[in-house]
């Protein structure tokens, strides 16, 4: 039984086109294609992108299913235009063995809405002391290539060195959550003018930058690939720019919320704005935007972090760190990078699809929209406004900082392997 | 707006009240005048200086703010507190003469009696007002009245003193919002 779709009147690399999908493949792209029995959708005014790939998501299963499951996270991802997500390892139990990563992989398969690529922990229990069974996870059904203790920093330089060296055997990459723990004990928000006035313990930029600096030098020394998670500071950007200019094999990501929100929001003491790494200053936001435009920061990654309501409805210092991100990512990038002229849609496709797929070694993802490519397609109407409503998100949790905001850009439809996984109004 | 008491008539009324107080209390020695701010305090000062001129010696006088004892605090945003100054001999065993500019519902005086009662036990409490405009809501009456002015509920009686308002005058205006 053949499944056929005809996506009509979308911008593909700046050219008004139709896209024909048959089963799992894109079979034609061009103007005014013939329908030939396909289900037709007219998306006049929209832009088509290759299916988005998120290199940093927290799906919370196993262990915190009250906040999110692989299924609900997949639904949120599909709504956001994603066709692949990488599930971070800080679950309970931690994904530090073949068994857990295979479990997550299979849950993703059975949900069937996106490709879920489990990320394996670097160290056992993400405690930062002993290497996890990296080989076993790489060779498992989940075929893990990205390893991260995210949530925690691999703070011990010797452990980080060994990890960087070891994953070379598996063509893996270590994705570091850069946070020097001794400088950030009990830290609550960015250390700066605002924190001094609010009486909340500061999380200084140098706690992130000192780890980035150390690790880019380490990676170069042992000739390994390094990926820096959620870069948030101007100083961090400058270090990465320097490393790349010397040809170091470093990649970096930025979250949508760090491209828009600043630490001024903490003045309300509303922990919806509490996140790790924290929201920084306007100057940092501008530096991150420029870096993403330049390609010094390679990709956008959501760091989608669902949390149960009671952990956000309390005093700031008791609240959990983290924000939802999957469903709002593309509209926020539209708002902060496309509408400001910093990126065009081809570059968005690179930052949100091809580059992340390349870093994660996800072969079936990240291809440009060309005939013969797997039918992973995201359609967004960039001028349509959307009032974000936390009670109508697909995620099980409600902790989006954008609730009540009107943002430009509505994901009209998502196709995963030729199947329609999301459609506005459906 | 109608003129009820021009300046000369106001002065005469205040002089008469001053004499009446002295007559009733057989002189100024046992009297303590307490004016209720704002305008009652000015009136009390006038009466005090009249009495001092007549008797040739100082009379005990001060002010008694009643804001904290009002029964209608919750109806309006919080009111400023005015000064309470009790003269040197206190109120214990004294003949206290409360002084206010206008007697209307009587609630201000009720509050003044409560406030006074917490300061001490006077021998007697008497009341002097420049204008009694009727419409009592409590069983309160004045001992000394400058002028009885029949008014309707929605009219406003305005008492002005030179020290405060630049002119001495009592007038009646048709009320809008208070």
């Amino acid at each position: 039984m053949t499944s056929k779709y005809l996506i009509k009147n979308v911008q593909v690399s700046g050219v008004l086109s139709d896209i024909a999908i048959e089963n799992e493949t894109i079979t034609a792209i061009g103007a005014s294609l013939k329908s030939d029995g396909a289900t037709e959708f007219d998306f006049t005014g929209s832009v088509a992108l290759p299916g988005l790939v998120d290199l940093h998501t927290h799906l919370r299963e196993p262990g915190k299913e009250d906040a999110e499951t692989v299924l609900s996270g997949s639904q949120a991802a599909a709504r956001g235009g994603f066709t692949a997500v990488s599930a971070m390892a800080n679950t309970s139990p931690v994904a530090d063995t073949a068994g857990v990563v295979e479990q997550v992989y299979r849950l993703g398969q059975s949900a069937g809405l996106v490709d879920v690529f489990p990320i394996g922990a670097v160290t056992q229990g993400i405690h930062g002391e002993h290497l996890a069974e990296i080989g076993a996870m790489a060779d498992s059904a989940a075929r893990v290539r990205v390893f991260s203790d995210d949530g925690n920093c691999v703070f011990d330089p010797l452990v980080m060195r060994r990890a960087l060296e070891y994953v070379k055997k598996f063509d893996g990459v270590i994705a570091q959550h850069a946070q020097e723990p001794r400088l950030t004990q009990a830290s609550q928000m960015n250390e700066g003018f605002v924190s001094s006035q609010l009486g909340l313990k500061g999380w200084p930029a140098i706690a992130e930058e000192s780890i980035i600096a150390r690790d880019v030098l380490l990676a170069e020394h042992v000739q390994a690939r390094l990926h820096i998670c959620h870069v948030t500071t101007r100083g961090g950007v400058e270090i990465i720019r320097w490393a790349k200019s010397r040809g170091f094999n470093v990649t970096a990501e930025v979250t949508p919320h760090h491209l828009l929100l600043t630490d001024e929001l903490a003045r309300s003491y509303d922990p919806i704005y509490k996140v790790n790494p924290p929201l920084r200053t306007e100057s940092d936001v501008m530096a991150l935007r420029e870096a993403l435009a330049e390609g010094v920061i390679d990709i956008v990654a959501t760091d989608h972090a669902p949390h149960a309501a009671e952990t956000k409805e309390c005093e700031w210092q008791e609240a959990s760190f983290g924000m939802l991100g999957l469903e709002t990512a593309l509209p926020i990038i539209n708002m902060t990078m496309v509408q400001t002229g910093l990126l065009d849609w081809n570059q968005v496709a690179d930052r949100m699809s091809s580059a992340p797929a390349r870093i994660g070694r996800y072969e079936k993802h990240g291809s440009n929209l060309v005939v013969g490519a797997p039918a992973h397609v995201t359609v967004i109407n960039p001028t349509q406004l959307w009032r974000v409503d936390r009670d109508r998100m697909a995620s099980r949790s409600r902790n989006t900082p954008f609730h009540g905001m009107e943002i430009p850009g509505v994901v009209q439809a998502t196709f995963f392997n030729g199947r329609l996984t999301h459609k506005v109004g459906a | 707006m109608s003129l009820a008491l021009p300046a000369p008539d106001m002065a005469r009324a205040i002089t008469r009240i001053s004499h009446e107080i002295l007559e009733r209390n057989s002189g100024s020695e046992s009297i303590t005048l307490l004016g209720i701010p704002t305008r009652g305090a000015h009136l009390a000062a006038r009466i005090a200086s009249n009495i001092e001129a007549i008797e040739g010696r100082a009379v005990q006088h001060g002010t008694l703010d009643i804001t904290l004892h009002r029964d209608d605090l919750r109806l309006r945003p919080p009111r400023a507190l005015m000064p309470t100054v009790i003269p040197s001999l206190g109120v214990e065993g004294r003949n206290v003469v409360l002084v206010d500019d206008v007697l209307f519902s009587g609630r201000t005086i009720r509050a003044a009696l409560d406030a006074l009662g917490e300061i001490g036990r006077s021998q007697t409490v008497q009341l002097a007002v420049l204008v009694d405009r009727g419409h009592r809501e409590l069983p309160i009456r004045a001992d000394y009245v400058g002028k009885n002015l029949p008014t309707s509920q929605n009219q406003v009686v305005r008492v002005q003193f030179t020290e405060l308002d630049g002119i001495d005058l009592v007038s009646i205006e048709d009320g809008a919002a208070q």
Partner: protein
Amino acid sequence: MKHLLSIADITKSQAINILNTAEELARASDGPMKKLPTLRGRTIVNLFAEDSTRTRISFEAAAKRLSADVINFSAKGSSVSKGESLKDTAQTLQAMGADAVIIRHSASGAAARLAENQWMSGAVINAGDGTHEHPSQALLDAFTIRRHLSHGGEDLAGLHIAIVGDVLHSRVARSNVLLLTKLGAKVTLVSPPTLLPVGIESWPVTVSYDFDAVIDKVDAVMMLRIQLERMSEMFFPNAREYSRYFGLNTDRLRRMKLAAIVMHPGPMNRGLEITADSADSARSVIVEQVTNGVSVRMAILYLLLAGTTEGEGVTS
């Protein structure tokens, strides 16, 4: 003014209004009128999720002098210490009919969360939230300074005040910096560099690491309590070094301006940040601060609870 959450939220004229109201209430309290009927029938809850005897008693005395009913909800043994959330506690208080909640909490921003979330409808008074603010302390400090040094003036223009000690962790310092400068005073912070927050450049103060250079130039010295736990976190090497450089001892006391006063929010570490001689000297107004605390807190309760909350009220 519906709540009193932080000095940052109130205007200069609102602050002066509180001080003037406190002046009248102090006079009433000095005289025979110890108890006033003004808040009769109102229920005020002391929600003290962090230990504090002096502030709680001060607010309780203030409330009772205005004839309000006071209910004490303190940390130990209460459901707050057993892990009941702030939200649930607030909803319980609402159900109990609290007209006002005076909250002291170890989390910065706790008072703001209570007020903004509308879990309850009464007035919220911040009695100290984490290291953020302690508005009533700053107001009683300003009241005390005004009485001694202002010579009839309404504000603190022309005065120079030093705040000495652990500024980083001090809510008293934060509230005082905001209020004293709002009232026109000049403020100098004296502290070891480790105990000043990053971002201090954005505060309207001058900063000095040298107590001796500042002591003879100021009209009031406000000593902050130093907590001994700070030594284990390496903010300074030991108590001896701290006292030597930042303690108010007799030598420094002697060098103060003729009419200058010594203040401390309490509780004091006698011998650490302040010697016994300094605390007990004729310049010390520390005991008076406590008395003034009751009048100032009475003024706060009066202005928040006596009238309606609509409209401007008495702000000018």
